[in-house]
């Protein structure tokens, strides 16, 4: 049995068509036996040898690293931030694409004015690394979400967060100052499973890579 951990939310939504192309769509009968939207987190698929588990985005690498899932689909932002050991990330799935950006209130060119920038972010490690590489001083305030409020409330000078269309930033009076990284969802493998079930996982990975290549050609 292969268990694939998939991050809830946008990654799950965009991974579903890809999984369906591979014959790994969640089994709807098992999923919605009462007609209501199911809250089951372990889902069988059309392939009896494969099942899916739904995880919170930041937990997907942990489930894969500890061996609860042999394979996973996780966001590049989380993988970069957590740098979980005992996994490998052999394939960029090119779904759930967005950018990690530094954003600050619109029109404010030098928000910190002579002192280290106060940056609110969920991605403290990634942001710290980026600022260090630039040689810029900054202090980081870890927040769990809705980062855009921090500069408006005077909590921070700027934020480091994910942006897709940039609408949330604009609607909250912020603008993108610099792009930190392109982000997309990655296929991840448990290191032990990658060795012990090498052939099975390599075949599945190959099929996923071919499906992505076909999408890119279309």
């Amino acid at each position, binding site marked *: *049995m292969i268990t694939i951990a998939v991050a809830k939310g946008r990654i799950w939504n965009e991974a579903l068509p890809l999984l369906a192309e591979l014959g790994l769509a969640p089994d709807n009968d098992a999923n919605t036996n009462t007609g209501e939207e199911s809250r089951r987190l372990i889902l069988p698929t059309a392939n009896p040898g494969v099942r899916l588990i739904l995880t919170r985005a930041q937990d997907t690498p942990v489930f894969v690293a*500890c*061996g609860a899932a042999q394979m996973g689909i996780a966001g590049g932002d989380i993988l970069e931030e957590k740098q*979980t050991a*005992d996994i*490998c990330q052999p394939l960029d799935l090119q779904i759930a694409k967005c950018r990690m950006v530094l954003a600050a209130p619109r029109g404010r060119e030098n928000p910190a004015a002579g002192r280290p920038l106060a940056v609110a972010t969920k991605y403290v490690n990634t942001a710290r690394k980026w600022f260090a590489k630039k040689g810029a001083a900054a202090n980081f305030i870890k927040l769990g979400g809705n980062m855009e409020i921090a500069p408006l409330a005077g909590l921070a000078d700027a934020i480091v967060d994910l942006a897709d269309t940039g609408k949330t930033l604009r609607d909250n009076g912020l603008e993108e100052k610099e792009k930190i990284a392109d982000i997309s969802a990655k296929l991840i493998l448990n*290191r032990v499973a990658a060795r*012990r079930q090498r052939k099975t996982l390599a075949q599945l990975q190959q099929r996923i890579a071919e499906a992505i290549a076909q999408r890119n050609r279309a």
Partner: protein
Amino acid sequence: MTRRGTLAATDALHPPGVCRTQMPMGKANTDPPRGAAGGIVCGNIRIFPPLFLMNPLPGHLGDMAPPLAERAERCRRRALDWLFAHSYRLFAPPLAEHLQALTAGDKTLDVDTFKMTDTLSGETLGLRADHTPQVLRFDRAARAENGNDGNDGVDNDDNRDGVRRYCYCGSVIRAHPPQPWKFREEIQIGAEIFGAPAPGGEMEIARAARGMLAAAGVGDLCVSLAHAGIVRALAAEMPEETRDEVLRRFSLRDADGVLAAAADDGNGKTLAKLCGIAGGEESLAEARAFLPPECQPALDELAFLRRELAREGGDAEVDFSDIGGYGYHTGAVFVFYAGGYVAARGGRYDRGESAVGFSVNLREIAEHLPPETRAAAVACPLAPDDEQWQQAVADLEKSGRRLRFVHNSEESPPPRLQKTKTGWRIQES
């Protein structure tokens, strides 16, 4: 879904590498036993003491209760006996040492080392996070004292050819748990060989890892081989920061990441191609086709090692990206997987002198081994004034059978020592 079904689903998800009985997370095992009797009863109210009194241990540190501790001890004895039989000398360094001697300049090891101030001298001490730097210190000191004539001061003639073999077994403590579900303390058992050139040294140490694990009762082993020397050679010209990032991406099998991190370095493409190659003899041939000539001897080493470890049906494969560990390896590296966990990790490194070694977390191994069935203990009622009883107990102790003295008049079920007309006899049933 039935309750039974729910439990089965949870069980199926439970990874084999996670301790089931003793959760390492401080909070997880501090829940008071609300379903069972516990706490202090005051009238009709049951009061639970503060959580820190229920579990005084810091996070990610845990007791080893019986039978886990007994299983670990049995593994330790069998493993050390195997190593003794193969001429490894036991070395037992102190748990605390000067920080520099424990980290040997390794950044990762430095972050992982518990630090404290010695109130005796004011110096900064550390608790060891790995045995290897201490073995290196000992070997270096022994050689300085005794010269490099093949006698390292150890009172035997096992190392007349200049090859020194050491083994060790003891606790190592890390400042941070290696994973959120793991303990910070390991019982580390392992071995190091100094003075054995490649590829014979690698073969001997990998065979030792396999033999020792088998002796300890670990089965279903397979090995993954890689070569840190190839990766280091290809990344040698890169600036340090770039090299670190390229090696990290390489070990993740992240080909796109390697390319991006290497930027315009010519070897970036080679490394990106290499990190995805894994398998048997064919993967070595695939790598041989595009790796530069200076990497070919390393491939020969891997081919030799794979062939030797695959003898007698051994499962040995190459995975070029599997170069994990402390990052100090410089040559061939190996990882033994048992079931769903890493059983042993080792390889060649160079810290002033080239050596090979491996280590094993005995606690993790003991957690994965099936419980051993114990023969029932012979119940011995106390009759110390009876000379025949004294003799019967002495005979029983000599026989190696487990015995248990009975301190009350309650009749124990057999097997038990019982007084008969002809003296004390064991009643088996």
